[in-house]
């Protein structure tokens, strides 16, 4: 293991810088931070899925010990705070705009999901705030809730402005060409699929701590955010909390996000507003029950999928009709997840010439649904890879062979799909081949026979997935409805002594950027890895940023650092040329040395850095200092792809499914730190297996969340999972300077389809939905 440390550059499995604080208890998460004089917030939350808010009687709780104030949505509305916006606007197929329902941070007239906040209690202790919140008497007029997705469009309208509860009816692809493909098909395979609702469950619950300085009028807000600059922009430009230059957001150590901490939520908005209003620092930390009730959930699709094939098993057309649950309001990215992050991926790894998808985005009286690890792409992969597997079974073709017949060939890139994307590069066969070797595909029949002899059922399932990451070319994204650009910013600040402080707009909440980004800059500038420090997550220190989601950090944020580092080198060459009395064009830079070509004259990086700040012998027309910024806007998405194979064994007596082997061979392009990349894949696979076997966010008919704790929502534990066999193949991304594609979501994208293909293979039926709990499996085995 020590061998891994000998090199710290790109490609080395460098141990992580950030681990020292995390393993010793010196991480600083939001709830670890306290301000002198702080008080504690506990929210008033709706017990009903849909109700009118009547009188809120706070007279008794206001008299309780330690209670400072009780503020409601009506107070917030009176202060003129605006609604929480959706950052992506989607158009319906008829050209009309989606219908966005107003989403006040605190409800003032009506609540629309259980747990929706309509007020906040501020008290000296958390316990006092809790006790007072219990004592608030609110007169609710309960209304019938719309909970069932399938019938939501025929139910009463939740929001006055949204008839049939339909936010949009979006389409992509050529409907006529797809219809024609089906008319010419030798085979049509049809499947109804449910993509189960999941709850993200970062282990650190969301939290916020706000202070307001009355003299400067500046608000400082510590918050559990994946993108503090974007949150600041929204809180100032849309919510109107405070001008941008009077608002500092700090996302310190953040304990996992998985998408759920991208969004701007009511709670941090309220805490910041309340801190100014009562002139006290205000702290809030969610308990896990609040996380279940109020973190944006994920997935929750119903789909009808049809695949048309010719007599040889060539795909001719794919038709997909999906109903996507958006919850009670549109969360920040909600509109884009079941549309542009979903429909565009339905070509998968295949040459399917005609594809048409329609997505109906629907409001229900449930917590908003938004991006969770993979965000649209696991849903697309589930659709494509389940129908391909079922087609292979129905046509009697080996599932590997059917995929091979239809895969885009390595010499066909760049490849224009019928659903808007241009894949820049890839080699899907290479990942597939290596995965087949790893799982020992040839040995499967013998393993299955051995299981059967022992009274067990064994199955093998594939998922050859593709994803679009590295979001995104700004102009393209804005033309499709994005409300902001999708570049990333970076700054490489060389200190006078030659050490380097790197500022990035990406945010690390487990991904290890302090290590990976230091590797990139250290490698580029030839300075020691330990001399590079990475700063992120503070709008007061980092110029701007769009944050971390969609596996974009290295591809976009890392590329920005490369561009900034190259500017440092370019300026360093001018300084070195002056000092060495040479032509700047004759200066080479390599391994931290500026040298005059074809000479023995050179200066170290540190000498040039020092000269930049102590400009004694220095070019007259050059500014002192050695610090460079870059905003990197990608030319295209990146397209990680790979093959995941799950092998399961089912005990028919108990219905328990054991994942006995899981192979993932992914093409992430170039790999900066293979140790970190493997870890990202492991975690993603665990979440995908969790979705396939265990996890399900369930509301009852009245809209009460009945999976609201770890007693009821089944998180994967160590003994639910196998060791994972992960490997990579490499086709470098063609359009960013690192050749990287992104690795954060692949595990969660490929694994649900692979596991469900394996389970349906073992059971011999397609009639099972995620999660394939032991009860469902047991009933099928019994023939119920």
């Amino acid at each position, binding site marked *: 293991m020590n061998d891994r440390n000998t090199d710290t550059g790109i490609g080395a499995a460098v141990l992580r810088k950030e681990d020292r604080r995390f393993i010793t208890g010196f991480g600083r998460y939001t709830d670890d931070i306290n301000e002198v004089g702080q008080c504690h917030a506990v929210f008033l939350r709706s017990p009903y899925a849909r109700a009118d808010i009547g009188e809120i009687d706070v007279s008794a709780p206001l008299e309780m010990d330690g209670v400072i104030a009780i503020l409601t949505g009506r107070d917030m509305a009176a202060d003129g705070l605006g609604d929480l916006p959706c950052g992506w606007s989607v158009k319906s197929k008829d050209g009309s705009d989606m219908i966005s329902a107003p989403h006040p941070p605190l409800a003032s007239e009506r609540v629309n999901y259980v747990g929706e906040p309509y007020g906040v209690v501020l008290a000296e202790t958390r316990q006092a705030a809790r006790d007072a919140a219990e004592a608030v008497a609110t007169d609710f007029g309960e209304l019938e809730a719309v909970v069932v997705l399938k019938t939501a469009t025929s139910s009463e309208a939740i929001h006055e402005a949204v008839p049939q509860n339909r936010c949009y009816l979006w389409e992509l692809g050529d409907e006529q060409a797809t219809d024609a493909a089906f008319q010419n098909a030798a085979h049509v395979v049809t499947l109804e699929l449910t993509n189960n609702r999941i709850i993200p469950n970062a*282990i650190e619950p969301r939290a916020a701590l706000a202070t307001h300085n009355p003299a400067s009028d500046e608000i400082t807000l510590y918050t559990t955010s994946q993108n503090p600059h974007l949150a600041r922009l929204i809180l100032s430009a849309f919510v109107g909390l405070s001008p941008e230059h009077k608002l500092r957001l700090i996302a310190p150590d953040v*304990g996992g996000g998985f998408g759920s901490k991208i969004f701007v939520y009511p709670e941090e908005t309220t805490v910041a507003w309340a801190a100014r209003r009562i002139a006290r620092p205000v702290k809030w930390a969610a308990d896990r029950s609040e996380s279940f009730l109020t973190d944006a959930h994920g997935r929750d699709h119903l789909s009808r999928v049809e695949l048309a094939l010719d007599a040889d098993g060539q795909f001719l057309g794919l038709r997909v009709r999906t109903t996507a649950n958006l919850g009670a309001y549109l969360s920040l990215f909600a509109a884009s997840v079941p549309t542009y992050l979903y429909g565009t991926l339905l070509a998968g790894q295949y040459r399917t010439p005609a594809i048409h998808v329609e997505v109906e985005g629907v409001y229900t009286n449930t917590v908003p649904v938004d991006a969770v690890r993979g965000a649209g792409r696991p849903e697309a992969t589930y659709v494509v890879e389940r129908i391909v597997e079922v087609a292979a079974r129905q046509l009697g073709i080996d599932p590997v062979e059917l995929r091979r017949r239809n895969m885009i060939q390595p010499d066909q890139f760049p490849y224009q799909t019928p659903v808007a994307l241009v894949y820049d590069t890839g080699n899907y066969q290479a990942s597939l081949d290596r995965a087949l070797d790893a799982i020992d595909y040839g040995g499967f029949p013998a393993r299955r026979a051995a299981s059967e002899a022992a009274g067990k059922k064994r199955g093998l399932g594939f998922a050859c997935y593709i994803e679009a990451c590295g979001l995104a070319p700004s102009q393209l994204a804005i033309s499709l409805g994005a409300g902001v650009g999708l570049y990333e910013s970076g700054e490489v600040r060389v200190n006078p002594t030659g050490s380097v402080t790197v500022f990035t707009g990406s945010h690390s909440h487990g991904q290890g950027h302090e290590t990976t980004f230091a590797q990139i800059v250290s490698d580029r500038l030839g300075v020691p890895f330990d001399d590079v420090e990475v700063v992120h997550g503070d709008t007061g220190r980092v110029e701007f940023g769009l944050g971390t989601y969609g596996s974009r950090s290295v591809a976009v944020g890392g590329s920005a650092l490369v561009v900034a580092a190259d500017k440092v080198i370019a300026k360093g060459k001018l300084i070195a040329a002056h000092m060495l009395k040479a032509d700047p064009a004759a200066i080479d830079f390599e391994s931290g040395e500026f040298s005059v070509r074809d000479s023995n004259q050179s200066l170290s990086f540190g000498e040039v850095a020092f000269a930049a700040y102590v400009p004694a012998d220095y070019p007259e027309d050059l500014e002192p200092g050695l610090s460079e910024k870059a905003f990197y806007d990608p030319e295209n998405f990146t397209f990680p792809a790979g093959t995941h194979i799950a092998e399961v064994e089912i005990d028919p007596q108990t219905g328990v499914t054991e994942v006995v082997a899981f192979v993932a061979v992914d093409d992430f392009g170039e790999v900066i730190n293979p140790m970190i990349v493997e870890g990202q894949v492991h*975690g993603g696979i665990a979440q995908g297996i969790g979705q396939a076997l265990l996890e399900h966010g369930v509301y009852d008919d009245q809209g009460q969340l009945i999976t609201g704790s770890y007693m009821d929502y089944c*998180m994967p534990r160590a003994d639910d999972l196998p060791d994972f066999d992960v490997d990579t193949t490499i086709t470098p991304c063609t359009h960013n300077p690192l050749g990287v594609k992104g690795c954060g979501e692949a595990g969660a994208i490929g694994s649900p389809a692979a596991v469900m293909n394996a389970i349906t293979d073992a059971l011999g039926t397609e009639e099972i939905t995620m999660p394939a709990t032991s009860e469902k499996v047991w009933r099928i085995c019994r023939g119920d």
Partner: protein
Amino acid sequence: MNVEFTVNGTAHTLDVEPNTLLVDVLRSTLGLTGTHVGCDTSQCGACTVHLEGRAVKSCAVLACQVDGGTITTIEGIGTVDDLHPMQEAFRECHALQCGFCTPGMIMSAIDLVERGEAGDEGSVRAGLEGNICRCTGYHNIVRAVLHAAQRM
């Protein structure tokens, strides 16, 4: 009510409410914020500390229950310059990502090894059933615990 106990070798006498949880005393009163709170049903294990050398979930222990007791938290098992073998193994095996479950996971893992129940992968997986990690998929945590068990 007054309670006396020792935390990481330092004796404390504190006035606590009868319903005060041990984890709140550790985090809020003593400032030992390495111990985390990840749930409210004693499931996630992020708050795991050692009481008399055995792993307990400090969210499920009242401060008054540990009167006279000896407690060790993540801050008390090693230092940045002199890591406990389990801390070292977690770093070497990349057994953590966001770090939030890590202190509890390390405290549980040490207890598991000291009880002699970390002999193989299966027993480690079973033994960590009370600690939830959302980042790592447990693969590297299991490797780290087996690795540390060789060194402890």
